[in-house]
């Protein structure tokens, strides 16, 4: 769970956003 959340956070931050949305979880899902 922590890994998924942290990867989602990194993805959001990479897009200069301060909120993790479902799209960010979707993007990291395959590799996760």
């Amino acid at each position: 769970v922590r890994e998924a959340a942290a990867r989602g956070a990194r993805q959001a931050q990479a897009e200069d956003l301060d909120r993790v949305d479902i799209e960010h979880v979707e993007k990291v899902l395959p590799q996760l």
Partner: protein
Amino acid sequence: ENWCLTSEEFEEWSRIYKLKESDGVKEPILPQSHFETLENMEEIAASQAEDAHKLSLSEWRLWQNRPFPTHLVDHSARCFHFIDVMEMIELMRHEEGDCSYELEIQPYLNMNDI
């Protein structure tokens, strides 16, 4: 009979299948997995350089929303889970504020289970 290719088989492989520089095709590799919460212990792949074609696990994810036709081997349980999660994400993509998943599951929450 042996694990090793015969010289005829090797010649065939080298001629038809082996990737050579003259083919103008970069070696395909998977992107290196990177952990955020664990120490990264994976071996750094040798050819992570520019002359490798990094495959993407996520570029085609939107199309992985249904089981595609199979031939001899059916899809795995893990595959069906992935498809179901992608479908769930699609349904929730445009939600703002209240979350339908949360509203549906909340009534079942029993703090003794935590």
